[in-house]
């Protein structure tokens, strides 16, 4: 299991991935927005999204869980 966590305080602008779906290295999980910049959060290894911990509009803190990949 791989946990994807936030690198910075940000707003969740778009949730791109879908819970239960397969993802590949480089796929976008969510797009964060911080300080007027969009920051895509990418998958770094292939697998399946077993949990999406954020929804659009959430404000997340550094270290917060975004998704879990199996």
């Amino acid at each position, binding site marked *: 299991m791989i946990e994807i966590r936030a*690198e*910075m305080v940000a707003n969740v602008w778009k949730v791109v991935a879908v819970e239960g779906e397969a993802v590949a290295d480089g796929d976008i999980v969510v797009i964060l927005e911080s*300080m*007027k910049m969009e920051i895509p959060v990418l998958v770094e290894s292939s697998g399946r999204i077993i949990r999406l911990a954020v929804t659009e509009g959430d404000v997340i803190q*550094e270290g917060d869980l975004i998704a879990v990949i199996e």
Partner: protein
Amino acid sequence: MLPESVLIANRGEIARRIARTARRLGIRVIAVYSEADAGLPFVAEADEAILIGPAPPALSYLNAGAILAAASRTGAAAIHPGYGFLAEHAEFAQQVIDAGLTWIGPPPDAIARMGDKISARNLMAAAGVPVAPGSTEPVPDADAAAEVAARIGYPVMIKAAAGGGGIGMSAAADVAALRTGFETARTRAERFFGSPAILLERFIAHARHVEVQILGLADGRVVALGERDCSAQRRHQKVAEETPSPGVGAELRERMLTAAIRAGLAVGYRGAGTVECLVEESTGEFVFLEMNTRLQVEHPVTEMVTGIDLVEQQLLIAGGADCSFDVGSVSPHGHALELRVYAEDPVRFLPSPGVITGWHEPAGAGVRVDAGYAAGNTVTPHYDPLLAKLIVHGADRDQALERARAAVGCFQVTGPKTNLPFHAELLDSPDFASGDYDTAVVSRLRP
């Protein structure tokens, strides 16, 4: 006539900078702030401060109703919009005027005509200001974009007509890149600016970004206060500016200043405005890019070389009064640089919000710091990453660079990462130090 009081519809460093001049002139300062900004210096230092809403800009700094209500409650005589947020909203400017308040900015009509980049380009071309080949009306879809691009020739620049800050902007070298870029630009244009209108322009690969500061006087005349070189950019956003431009000689300067005055006269401009141009390196010719109908972030470099307080002139002109200086004899002296201190990592330029645990500003001869934050403040993700502007003046460019290097070394911010280490690198890089650089200077340092 100066207003008795001014409500500053902005935040951070610019709210503080406007307040400083207002206070010096004996004008009562009213701040408005969001919940996220309650602890910032601009709130504490104001004579009155009104909470206007939660952190998201749409609910606070872009909330015209809440700002006008705050003005009414505090008996504000005037509203200064700063830059960004509502500064270039013609409708808001009109609402301010309709409420019987003084709008510290140009006429709403001038804002509207310059706010749409397509209409601005057409207007400038008609006024005899050079523009790059491009679309004269909004480009509706990718197919139409391909046709326009074929006509003006690749590479082309794709821009949001209502846009700014480089958002949604990209260059395309061929039709495939054009189609991708067009869709991105349209999505972002809609999301950030509420208008999907897109324009295409011939992309000038090797160019300097040079802009002219103008003042539209109360009597209708327009004066130009010299140029600023803003070629040092990352993601199409400025990081360092200087005046005079090392790439502009006396003859070109004369022509650019004349064109900028013509641009201001064409829209009946009043107050402080900036005419942005690109200077193509191969030809030494310039084209009009856009006009910013407000005070510019980098206005302090002009103030440092001219000794003119631009906010004071804005306040005077809005009140129908003469400027505080002799408009017939402006003679800039020396050289000034501005470095934008952003809360971002200095390598990838990614945002770095957080709590500021330590803050130490440089001081000394020729050094000015316009800061929005202090130790103990939290930098939130809701607004742009600008923490402060470090402005340095010297008798010549070499002295300004030397002072800038020393000042960057003394500027200490702990907590969020900042781009101060990047500025140290930029000032030492042969490209920037030589003065012979273009808009790619930052990307060459960060390939």
